[in-house]
C-alpha cells in the first residue's frame, strides 16, 4: 500500500533503524524514537524536506517519506500491552537498514 516511488531505498516490510543523530535545526523525527528499530509499513511518497523549508529553502530534491511501525514495548522502557504499536512518518535520510 502507498505510493510507488522509483528511487526509494526501502520497501514495506524492511526492518529499519532510526538514526541516533542529534543535530540542530528543524527536525521532524521525534527524540523518543531515535535509535529505535521498526519496520517500513508504507511508502507515503516523496515530499520536500522540512529541515530546509523551515529556513526559507526550497526543500528540494523531494525525498521519500515512510510510515514506520514500531512495537510499543520496544520504544518505551515500561509498556504493558504487548500488541500495541506506534507509527511515525519518517524521512528516508533518518533511516538505516537493519536485520
Amino acid at each position, binding site marked *: 500500500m502507498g505510493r510507488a516511488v522509483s528511487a526509494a531505498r526501502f520497501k514495506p516490510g524492511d526492518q529499519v533503524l532510526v538514526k541516533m543523530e542529534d543535530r540542530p535545526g*528543524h527536525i521532524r523525527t521525534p*527524540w523518543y524514537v531515535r535509535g529505535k528499530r521498526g519496520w517500513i509499513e508504507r511508502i507515503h511518497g516523496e515530499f520536500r524536506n522540512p529541515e530546509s*523549508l523551515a529556513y526559507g529553502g526550497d526543500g528540494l530534491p523531494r525525498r521519500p517519506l515512510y510510515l514506520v511501525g514500531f512495537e510499543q514495548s520496544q520504544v518505551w522502557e515500561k509498556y504493558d500491552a504487548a500488541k500495541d504499536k506506534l507509527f511515525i512518518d519518517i524521512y528516508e535520510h533518518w533511516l538505516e537498514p537493519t536485520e
Partner: protein
Amino acid sequence: MPRGHHDLGGTERDSGPIERGEHQLEDWEILADAVNQALGAVGVKRTDELRRAREEMDSELYRSLSYYERWIASMEAILIEKKILTREEIDRKVGEFEKKWGEP
C-alpha cells in the same frame, strides 16, 4: 543539543491528566488563525518556518503561552526575520491603539 521543548512525546514533565475544557475562540484568535493561513496562501511564509520559530522561542515562554499566543509570537518573529515588518513599527502600531483607548 538538548531535546527541543516542542518535542514532547513521552516526556515526564507533561504526563499529567488531560484538561478537557474547551474554549470558544476569541476574535483575536480567529484573526491570528486567518492571518496565518492567508500569509501561507500568498506565499509569504511556510508552516515549517513558523514551527521552527516556535522551536526557537524561550522554552518557558513556549510552555506558558496559549496556542494562538504562540502562533502570534512566531508569526511576528518570522515577519521580522524576513524584513516584512519591523518590531518598531509593530510596537508603534500597538502604541497607536493604546493612545486611542486613552491608555498610559
